[in-house]
């Protein structure tokens, strides 16, 4: 290309990008989406009320059942693959599997969760595409993103679904998020709503530290505790109030940590089952956890 034309092109490419651009684009895309969601009645008031309640008060499951005369999500509810994104070239690969909850009857809860999972899948794919473009510019590196789901518990009362994401760029990292659903009461169980007050955070954290020390002594595992790491910032201190968790088939609480958060990366995602007797006094009821 002609030198002066190349200069013009360079100026064109150097057009300053305003900071607002990201917001303008995301809002434009989202507003449209909200419009679609509204028209499909996916964000109905009932679901919003249930969610709001779950977050704001320690509502007992029995009370929840009395308050909401809602159709149960049903025993037929099951987890299916809703969508898959695949992209593969020599250096870049995406394999994103989006779960969906299929229910015997249409329910707001299933719709709401499915909308959330679709959004997560879409965002993950868009992020992958953006990162790939960026890497193409600099001309090297490999990128692989895969995601999928795992059903931890599926019984008459509880459905626990985990969505995992593994990102490999040089080294790999794994993250996992859970939704635990009370099928009969049609609500998403959050960690805070299981307990009377915030004391659970310290009680569970201390129990996990004790388990870590035990496993280090007996099984030779490594965890990042204040006494084992030189970097106190890295040491495990407490769980997050909304730490990832699920409930097992026999009603035990399991706390999950993403790769490299509390232990070396090679250990992957780490889980701790909290003995029920440790938290029994803190629980709002023994309905879910016993």
């Amino acid at each position, binding site marked *: *290309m*002609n030198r*002066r*034309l190349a*200069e*013009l*092109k360079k*100026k*064109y*490419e150097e*057009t*300053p*990008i*305003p900071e*607002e*651009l*990201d917001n*303008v*684009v*995301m*809002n*434009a*895309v989202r*507003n*449209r*989406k909200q419009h679609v969601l509204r028209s499909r009645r996916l964000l109905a008031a009932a679901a919003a009320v249930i969610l709001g309640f779950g977050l704001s008060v320690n509502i007992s499951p029995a009370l929840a059942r009395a308050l909401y005369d809602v159709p149960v999500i049903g025993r037929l509810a099951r987890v299916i693959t809703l*969508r898959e994104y695949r992209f593969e070239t020599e250096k870049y690969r995406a394999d994103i599997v989006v779960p969906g909850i299929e229910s015997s009857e249409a329910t707001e809860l299933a719709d709401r969760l499915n909308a959330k999972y679709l959004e997560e899948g*879409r965002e993950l*794919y*868009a992020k992958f*595409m*953006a990162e790939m*473009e960026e890497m193409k510019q600099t001309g090297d590196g490999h990128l692989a993103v895969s995601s999928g789901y795992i059903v931890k518990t599926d019984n008459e009362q509880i459905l626990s679904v985990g969505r995992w994401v593994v990102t490999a760029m040089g080294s790999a990292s794994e993250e996992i998020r859970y939704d635990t659903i009370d099928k009969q009461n049609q609500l998403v169980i959050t960690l805070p709503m299981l307990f009377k007050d915030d004391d659970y955070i310290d009680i569970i954290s201390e129990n996990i530290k004790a388990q870590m020390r035990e496993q280090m002594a007996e099984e030779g595992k490594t965890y990042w505790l204040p006494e084992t790491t030189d970097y106190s910032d890295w040491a495990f201190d407490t769980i997050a109030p909304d730490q990832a968790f699920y409930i097992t088939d026999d009603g035990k609480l399991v706390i999950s940590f993403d790769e490299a958060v509390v232990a070396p990366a090679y250990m992957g995602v780490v889980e701790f089952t909290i003995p029920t007797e440790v938290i029994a006094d803190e629980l709002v009821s023994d309905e879910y956890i016993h």
Partner: protein
Amino acid sequence: MTEMNKRRLQEETLVAFLIENRERLYRLAFSYVKNQDDALDVVQQSIYKALSARAALVQPESLRSWVFRIVVTTAYDLLRQKRRLQPVGDEILQLHQPVGEDVPADFDLERVLDSMDPKYKSVIVLRYFEDLKIEEVAEVLQENVNTVKTRLYKALAMLRLQKDELALTEEERS
């Protein structure tokens, strides 16, 4: 695949494309409207248009041309609304005259490009800055390939860039 799923997939592909190419869309818009607020406006309106008209998009491989076309027409519309189209001044008219041997050192290509009629500017921006093929430029501008070639030559002449100087492909020469 059901019709519904197909449409959802199309929408998702489109959203991913829009997010991924947001800076390109902004640059393209800016090259017409030449100010930040208007360019952001054009990007926003283009996204709305693209998302509500996605049914019109049939072949996924023409996604880029299709989105670019929306941005270009939206930018044109905005320029028209604002009646900001700069009248062609003497300076530009002179540029249509035969190109001399030597180009003055202070010849400001950028200014000339900015003041060009959008239909000439478009071919330069799309062909040389966005690296689209002639066929794709034609698709974006909804013109036939020969019209695009003619405009490209005129535009280059206005920029006083002789075609011999340019690494034009045979296809473009013909």
